[in-house]
Each structure stands twice: as structure tokens, then as C-alpha cells.
């Protein structure tokens, strides 16, 4: 990739003695992981877009989507992205209790999102739209479901971070974990924006 030698040198003055900041390294590693996740989702999006008209004679999204639930999901996740940011802010001021409270609120909003999504899935299945119905519904459930799995893992991960902070308090290590988690959570919200736009809005318009 584009590399400017001029930047390289002042970068290294910072690490004059060859000591590397472990939190910096973890943060960059996690950023790169998130970019690989971008590619993961873009492959799913590409598949969904290519197969979106292959409804196999069954009803498509325009007929079956319940937009009220989807809009509610959107605002829950957007708000949780905001509250996870507030948690990080509290963390930088070393306010442990507010930070944990913001994290718990984030988790509850995420759980609310998941509950609504599951309700949506169950309703769709009752109307006959399943993974096996058509290419459209296979792509829909896989794409939206992959995002849902990410949210679920995120909640589990957050619980483990809260437990660790309660046990060990805030230090460089646990702070790093919260920072990385909040990045992950903002990223999931960003993916959801495109799910809302490409899967739901473009389908029902």
C-alpha cells in the first residue's frame, strides 16, 4: 500500500528504543480484523443483491417485511452505539461505575434489538418464508442472521469484559478491551445501516 518514507521516520522516533506499545498493536490488529469483517459482509451483500429477484414464485420482502419492527431495531442499535461511546468516555475519565452502567445499557439495547429481530424471523417463518423457500429468503436470512450472530457474540464478549473489570479494575489491559469492544459495536451499527438501506428500504420502496 501507499507508504511514505517521510512518515516512517518520525513514526520510529516515537519508538526510539524499539519498545512497542501493546495497546497500540492490539488496536491496529483489531482494526484490520474489522476490515476483514467488512469484506465478509460485502460478499454476503453481493450475494443478496445478485439473488434478490430470485423469489421462486414466492412472496418477496416487499410483501412480508414488517417495517415498524425494523425501524425500532434501527433506533435501538443506533442508541446502543451511542451509549457504548459514552462508556468509553467514562472509561477515559476513570469513572468505573458510570462506565459499567453505560455498558449494561448498551447490552440491554442490543438484547432488545436481538429480541425484535428474532420476533421478525419467527413471524416470517410463520408466513412461510424460510431458508428453504427461495434464493431470496436464503440470502436474506443468512445476511441478516450473520449480523445477528455478530451482535450476540458482542453481548457475550461484553459480559466477559464487565466481569473482568469488576474483578481487576481499570488498567491499560482492561481499558484496551473496552476500547476494542466499542469499536466492534460501532462497526455492527454501521453494518446495520447498510442492511436497513439495501435489504429493507430498497426492497419495500
Amino acid at each position, binding site marked *: 500500500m501507499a507508504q511514505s*518514507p517521510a512518515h516512517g521516520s518520525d513514526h520510529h522516533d516515537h519508538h526510539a528504543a524499539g519498545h512497542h506499545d501493546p495497546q497500540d498493536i492490539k488496536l491496529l490488529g483489531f482494526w484490520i480484523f474489522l476490515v476483514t469483517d467488512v469484506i465478509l459482509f460485502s460478499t454476503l451483500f453481493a*450475494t443478496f443483491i445478485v439473488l434478490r429477484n430470485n423469489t421462486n414464485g414466492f412472496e418477496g420482502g416487499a410483501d412480508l417485511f414488517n417495517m415498524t419492527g425494523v425501524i425500532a431495531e434501527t433506533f435501538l442499535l443506533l442508541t446502543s452505539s451511542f451509549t457504548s461511546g459514552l462508556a468509553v468516555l467514562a472509561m477515559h475519565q476513570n469513572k468505573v461505575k458510570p462506565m459499567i452502567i453505560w455498558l449494561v445499557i448498551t447490552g440491554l439495547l442490543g438484547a432488545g434489538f436481538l429480541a425484535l429481530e428474532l420476533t421478525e424471523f419467527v413471524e416470517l417463518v410463520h408466513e412461510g418464508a424460510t*431458508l428453504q423457500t427461495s*434464493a431470496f429468503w436464503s440470502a436474506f436470512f443468512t445476511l441478516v442472521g450473520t449480523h445477528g450472530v455478530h451482535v450476540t457474540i458482542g453481548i457475550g464478549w461484553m459480559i466477559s469484559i464487565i466481569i473482568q473489570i469488576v474483578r481487576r479494575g481499570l488498567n491499560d489491559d482492561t481499558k484496551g478491551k473496552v476500547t476494542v469492544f466499542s469499536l466492534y459495536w460501532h462497526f455492527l451499527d454501521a453494518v446495520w445501516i447498510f442492511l436497513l438501506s439495501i435489504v429493507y428500504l430498497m426492497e419495500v420502496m
Partner: protein
Amino acid sequence: MLENIKEFASEFFVTGDPLIYGADASIVLATLGIVFVLTYFKKWGWLWRNWITTVDHKKIGIMYILAAIVMLFRGGVDAVMMRTQLAFPDLNFLEPEHYNQIFTTHGVVMIFFMAMPLMFGLFNIVVPLQIGARDVAFPYLNSLSFWLFFAGAMLFNLSFVIGGSPDAGWLAYPPLSGSQFNPGVGQNFYIWGIQISGIGSLASGINFIVTILKMRAPGMTMMKMPMFTWSVFAASTTIIFAFPILTITLLLLFMDRFFGAHFFTLDGGGNPMMYINLIWMWGHPEVYIVVLPAFGVFSETVATFARKRLFGYASMVFAMVIISIISFFTWAHHFFTMGSGANVNAFFAVTTMIIAIPTGVKIFNWLFTMYKGRISFPTPMMWTIAFIPAFVVGGMTGVMLSVAPADFQFHNSYFLIAHFHQVLIGGVVFGYFAGLYYWWPKMFGFKLNEYLGKWAFWLWNIGFYVCFMPQYLVGLDGMTRRISIFSDPDWVGLNVISTIGAYIMGLAFLFQVAQIGYSIFRHEKDTTGDIWDARTLEWSMPSPAPEYNFAVIPQVHSRDEWWEEKERRRRGEKPWQLGPIEPIHMPKNSAIPAIMAVCWFVLGFGLVFHWLWMAIPGLIGVFICLYARSFSAHKAEYYIPVEEIERTEATLRGGAV
């Protein structure tokens, strides 16, 4: 009850073929042999402490290479069996169904379980030493990557004796690989074997990018990095963007097979062509992923053995970066015949031709490096020289294939087979052999026997041309790939010659095994640590390197820092001013990666057979391991005290610091 067990066993185990029974017996014997040796010499603890739980990049590299050599043997046996069938098609040495399995596993094993681990092995051994680091950025993750690769490879290879091998080609195109036409478990082994090892590859890609960006010695700017490190950087960048596509493509195929979804099926609105589109979006960059590090190896060996600076450093870097970017824009040339129309084909034909240009630049750079050099010809350099004609011919036939209208003639013929074997063996395998011979002394402290190595080299090269040149001709004559029987008498002679070549290469491989075996027992210990009088930092330390690599991290001033340092010493100038030895911060060994890989294996095996009672505990195990690591990671580090470092250095350097 007994009847039930018998019936289950006859479906569970692959039966009915004497070759398979032979394999069963040899697997059981080999396993018993290993268990016996380990128990007899009381080596279980040693194996656990020094290898299974290690996070040391040098040991992980050695394990990758060992596994890759075993897989090279397996893939090679597949190749020889196919060639035997094609030399005597009427003898029915392999039944058509069996032949399908063999060409499938040959391709999968060679790419995923031979080329990739050999590549990661070289990454692991060389990169941290070359950039002046004490390990990779994430040593624990590195160990996990290896064990995921290993679990995936074992799961895939198990299909040979349990359940049945996949048989839909190395890229498993649907609908043939879908459950409608392939109801057995073979394709499930394919999906999960590759998926599990692919996750490990992705993690390695991230790991090496961060290592290279963040762990370089002070003073080593990006444009002072050794060329092999640059090639690792380019390959890793390509990995992180290509492998997620593979993950999803295999996931979708799994959804089709396991849940009855309709992504790539013929009914329900599925579109098998989408699979072909997606798999090549990964598949084409993958080719460059494996070849870029080979280019890196050649850049090191050419400079070392021509005793000159690498010619055109900046253009070399530029070419690698450009190759890794353009490799994402050529994928459709693998399916010109799919019928996407003239516009699509024209675009991808042109991008394919463009990517040949930076490759040509590199070839000229290597040639100019050798020009007026004082060239010596030990085995690593011989492989480097042999690479150039092999790769030029392979590259030129590649440009022929890129001409879309002509490709309608070449497509899926033996011309294509000859082309990609020429670039993959002539480029990748020759490159990794060069790297293996070149860095072997750094890994083990002694050189491989040159005499046997030269025999292996010549047999490989002769066998290579004897095997693949006739395939170009028989391909132009119309012979297509993946057939086990043919009736055209004109093809017989060329196929027999080709088979002779394959056997010569098999013989060459045996020479290499003999070479390694012989050298382990009869060798001269390298006391210099710089056996080739080479140029980069990995040669500035004793061979094999101590666990912390550098007692003191050197300050880098120029590209070939170690060479410059030796020049300074030769001129009698002041050598490196290394700071005082300080305690070194190291990661502790961890058993979690190996245990997590076992859980992945259990998960994969359960999903292969649709046994949820097995898959779900496997999945839970994976999450328990993740939690266990998250809760214990902060305790997983320790310091090596100064006295111990001084003691180690004194022993290794024979007091000659």
C-alpha cells in the same frame, strides 16, 4: 445390535478398495509407531512443553514446514496415482469415481495443506528475525493459527478412510458439489477442512501485517525492509482481503447442503454461477498470495549469492504492491466461457495482461542483480536460477490463456493444466524449496547435504519438464482435464512421457527426504550464524536463534544492514553500538490454542456427519476456550532475567561476542 454396528461401520469407514485398506493399515502402524517412540523415550512431556503449547514463532514455523512436507508427500502420491492411470487408461488402475476423488484431494492438499503451510512456515521463521523483532505481534494467535490449520488438514485427510473423499474438483463447483448430486459426506469434509484452516490463515494474515507495521527495529523504515518481508506484507494484505470471501462462499455452500438453502442449487431460484464468481474472487488472489513470498525468497537469494545489492529495490516494492492490488481485478478470466458477454471478458482479459507487466519487471530486476555479480551456485541459488525459465514459460502461456477468444479453445484442457502447474511448481514450489534450503541453517544450525540436494534438484527439473511439456501439446490436441479414460491413440504416447516425468519428480522427492535424513545425522555444525555470508538481520545472530531472538535490538541504518555492518567491521570501523542487555518480556506458552483446535475439529466432524450432539459441544468448547483466554491473557507474560540472557549468549557465541 451387532448388525447395526456392522452396517454403521460399513458406511462410516471407506471400504472395498485394497489401496484404502493399505492406507488404513499404514495409518494405524504409523500412529502406533509414534506413540511407542514417544512413550519409550519418555518424550510426551517434551512434545507438550516444547511444541504443542509453544508460542515461539521459530518452533511454530518448523511445525508448519514439517506438516507441509507430509502433505507434499500425500499430494504427490495422489499425482503419481493419477499419472499411472492416464499412462495405462485401459488397465483401470483407478475407477472413474476414485479418480475423481484423487484429483480433488490432490488439488486441495497441494494448495491448502502444502503451499499455504510451507508459506506460513517461512513467514514465521524469517519475518521476526529479519525485522529485528522478538516475536510476531500476537504470538498466542500465531499458535492458534497453526493449530487451526492442523485441525483442518487432519479433518480433510480423514475423509480418505472415514466417510469418503470429496470428488467435485478442488474448487467444488455446484451443482455437482450440492447435496442433490453429491449426497455423501465427502463435500462436508471439504467445506470444514478448508473452513477451519482458512480461519487460521486469515488470523495469520492479520498477525503478519501488524508485525511488519509495528514491530520493526528502530531505524528500519518501510523502504529499508528486506524484500522478503515486503513480499510477506504484500501477501498478507492479499490474504486479509481475499480469505473472508472464501469463508462466506464455503458458508453459503454449507447452508445449501446442511439447511437446504437455495444459493447455488438448480431449483428454488439458486444460481450456481454465483458460486463460481465468488470462489474465484478468492481463488485468483490466492494464486498471488502463494507466489509473492516465492518472489521474496528469490530477491533474498539472488542478492546473497550474486554478492550484490538487489537491483531496483523501489520498483520491486512497487511491483509487489501493484500485483497484490491487481490480483483482485482479474478473477473472471477463470470463467471466460461462462457467457458473461464481450464487455466483461474484454475487461478481465486486459487486467490479466496488465498483471504480467510488474511480474516481468521483477524478472528483469533479478537478472540485473545477477549481472556482473560474483555468483556462487549452492542449492538455494540453483532453485532460483531454475525458476526463471520455468516461470517465464508459464507466464507466457498464461498470457496466451488471457486472450478471451482463444481461451474458449484452451479452457479446461491440458494446456491449462500444464500452465498452472508450470507457475505453481516452477514459481511457488521452486521458490519455497529455495527458501527452505536457504534458511534451513538458520532453523537448525546446519546446512543440508549439497550432493544429495543437487541430485534432487536435477531430478526435479528434468521430471518437471518431461511431465508438463507434453501436456501443453496434448491439451492443444483437445484432451480435457479430469478424465480418467480416453480413446484417442494420438494421446497415448504423450501421456506416457508425462507419467515418466511425474515418476522422476517422485524420485526427486525421495532424494530430498534422504537428504534431510542424511543431513540430520551427518553434518557440520554452523558456528558463524551467517553460513552464506548474507545481508539481512536474521544472519546477525547465532543459528539456531535463541528464544528471544535478539539479546539487544540493533539500530538499523540501511537496507542490507547486516552486510553494511560486516563492511564496517572489515574496514575496521566501529561496530554496532548495542545498548546494554535488559530483561526481555516474553509471552508464556499456552495450551489453549491446541485445545481450541481440537474443539473446532469436533465441531467440524459433527457437522460433516450432521451429528449435532457432537457439533454443539464442540462449539461450546470453542467459546469456553475464548473465555478462558480472555480471562487469563494478562497473566501470560514473563521476563527473562539479564543473567540468563548473558549466559545463553555466551554459550551460543562461544564467548566470541
